[in-house]
């Protein structure tokens, strides 16, 4: 009797998780960093792939496909061709907003399905250790006398986070931002050598690119764009502490194709929330000097819309906005 009961129970259990024929996902997922191998977006894709594997979160494997062309526009353009499908995820950054504003792509926020924001990197102003600038206040004071007196170096073509990190504090300090001198270099590595070599007076870029040289005492950060002081650089003041009302994060997030099926959206929202809570993810972030900035889809969407309004205004001031079609 007991045996029979056990047997029927076992049978019942075996039958219980009977997969409905369309249990999502049924095929591998394309994970598309909107950047080339070696860059930050690529790194995020590899980290996601690794953590899903290590924490056994993956029901189906990822295939990482880099689509960095067109300043990341290629990734979004590809996603649009997959409208209504559920097997593509792109990893992108605030370029999805900036590129649409400056008019290099016609695809806007409406053409993507935000799944989750994963990380944020904060931006710094940084000078060489022997620079006369001891504080960001010194730099601002000089700019107030003459906005064109200092050449800022950034690591990518404007408009971009590096660039906004010059414009926003200057604007908040009442400086004529149209007269600022911002010189762009091809990549963070290029910029780093220019600051270390003393060619660029003040660099504006994200922290991870320069942290090794900051730790070694060769570079001095002046201000950080985070809402509060960072554990990693306790001595560096935030803009708010300096009396400048600026907060700026270089985030990376996951997006699905437009009109992604509800089921797929919910699946990935849950999976990425799980991933963000794992130890492997936290360890991977720490190793790469990235900040956990997980935000679920709804919050992510709201902040994207808020950022879009702010960026539109800034680019308008700079005359970088694409003419309305």
């Amino acid at each position: 009797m007991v045996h029979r009961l056990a047997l029927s129970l076992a049978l019942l259990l075996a039958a219980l998780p009977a997969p409905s024929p369309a249990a999502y996902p049924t095929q591998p997922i394309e994970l598309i960093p909107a950047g080339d191998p070696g860059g930050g977006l690529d790194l995020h894709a590899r980290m996601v792939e690794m953590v899903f594997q290590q924490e056994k979160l993956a029901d189906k494997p990822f295939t990482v496909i880099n689509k960095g062309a067109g300043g990341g526009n290629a990734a979004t353009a590809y996603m649009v061709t997959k409208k209504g499908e559920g097997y593509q995820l792109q990893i992108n950054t605030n370029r999805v907003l900036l590129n649409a504003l400056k008019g290099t792509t016609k695809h806007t926020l409406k053409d993507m399905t935000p799944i989750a924001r994963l990380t944020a990197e904060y931006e710094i102003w940084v000078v060489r250790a022997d620079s006369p600038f001891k504080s960001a206040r010194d730099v601002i004071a000089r700019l107030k006398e003459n906005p064109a007196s200092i050449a800022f170096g950034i690591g990518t073509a404007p408009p971009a986070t590096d660039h906004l990190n010059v414009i926003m504090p200057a604007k908040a300090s009442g400086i004529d931002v149209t007269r600022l001198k911002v010189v762009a270099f091809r990549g963070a590595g290029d910029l780093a050598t220019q600051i270390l070599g003393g060619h660029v007076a003040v660099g504006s870029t994200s922290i991870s690119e320069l942290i090794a040289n900051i730790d070694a005492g060769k570079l001095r950060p002046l201000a950080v764009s985070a809402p509060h002081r960072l554990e990693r650089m306790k001595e560096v003041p935030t803009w708010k502490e300096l009396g400048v009302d600026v907060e700026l994060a270089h985030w990376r997030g996951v997006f699905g194709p437009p009109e992604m099926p509800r089921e797929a959206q919910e699946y990935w929202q849950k999976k990425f929330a799980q991933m963000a809570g794992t130890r492997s993810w936290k360890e991977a972030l720490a190793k790469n000097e990235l900040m956990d900035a997980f935000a679920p889809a709804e919050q992510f969407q709201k902040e994207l819309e808020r950022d879009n309004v702010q960026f539109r205004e800034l680019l308008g001031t700079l005359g970088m906005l694409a003419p309305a079609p």
Partner: protein
Amino acid sequence: MEILTQLLAGLGGAMTGANLLACLVGCLLGTIVGVLPGIGPSATVALLIPVAYVITPTSSLIMMLGVYAGAMYGGALTSILVNIPGEASSVMTAVDGYQMAKQGKGGVALVVSQVGSFIGGTLSIVGLMLIARPLADFALRFGPAEYFSLMAFALVLASTLVSDSPLRGIIGVVVGLLVATVGTDLQTGVPRFAFDIPELLDGIEDVIVIIGVFGVSEVLWYLATSRGREGTEKMDAGRWKPTAAEWRQSGWPMVRGTLVGFFTGVLAAGASLGSFLAYGLERRLSRTPERFGKGAIEGVASCETANNASTGGALIPLLTLGIPLSGTTAVLLSVLLMYGLRPGPNLMVEQAGLMWTVIASMYVANVLLLILNLPAVGLFVQILKIPLTFLMPIVLVFASVGALALNNNLFDIGLVFAFGVLGFGMRWLGFPTVSVVLGVVLGERLEQSLRQALMMSDNGPLTFVTKPISLFFLLLTAALVGLDLLARRRGHQAGEAA
């Protein structure tokens, strides 16, 4: 002495079974990647990242550096055999290597390129060990003004010399410079000459122009000139053992190529810049410069040595400053970070054991590559026995696959063919096509450095002459032009007298 003991300890680490295997796998992969145009070492190293989760940090770094070194060896093969350089750094190899292949000396060119690669690769690691720190500090002295003058020098040295007519050479370079302006402008973020075509927003990749102007235009040239000779014509595999005289001719170019390649490797855009400079230098020093471009063995020797020597140089900013200046070293940096190693001013001290094992493995990789590739020369030159009517379509397929492999985009194939037609047209009109490639490869940095320097300068264009390094290269450029003009005038006078 201390360095020697550390190196020996490192060699001990590199010669363990697992590490040796990792090195071998890396070298083989790298050679294949080098042969296939379009797939670069940076993409391959990125593909290997998942492998890095399962093997030790040391082994995976060794494998990745094997790929890096192997790709530089492999690049010579297609340049010489089918006139398709896989990347900008082997363009000059194709210029003389392919001519040698046509003359039945393809095997010789391959052997010299492999030996040159070995010498350049190995000696640059010695340099990396001995003078990494001072060289890194020297590289930091290159700001935009210095880069501009160096690029201008390289362009003048390499371009006016590949052509008998300086004017035609300059026109070729200008066409290249124009192509280099396509894409989003770095300073303003505004697209230039992109015509709302999304694929053009990032500009046209060097490799696209190279494959088109070299590979495809060669096929078109064959089509246009082979009437009546179809079916029978083929190149000659010939001998592959260089003669004593050929070795002697290659000796000094290899030494100079190593020096030039190593020092320029430390700078951004190092590998291609180094090979252009090395080639230009050889032609300038040669007593018979007219042989260059028509199968001069010195050209192949200097260029292949220089691009391999740049690998050692390129690792210096990464290891001593924690700064990657090329795609491949950027991927290597992310791998180091993954293992919790932070390259930077202190890496060589804090992680001495690992670093010396890795450096030692670079020696091992170069030895392995030489052992692998030299016997393979006999096999590869068999390609030349294929009649041209069959070989040329294969070249076309190869060029298309290479273009597709870049971004998985059919648009790139179209571009490659467009540049093939452009290359053919220029050749038909007697313009040196390699000048176009020079303009494309060096153009972007030349333009951006100029604008960066002017934006940052307090006294306008004077910045180029007030900075000593910049002034040095400008004077050198002026001297080159002056010497050319003088030689030309003498030539004219001699011509009139006779």
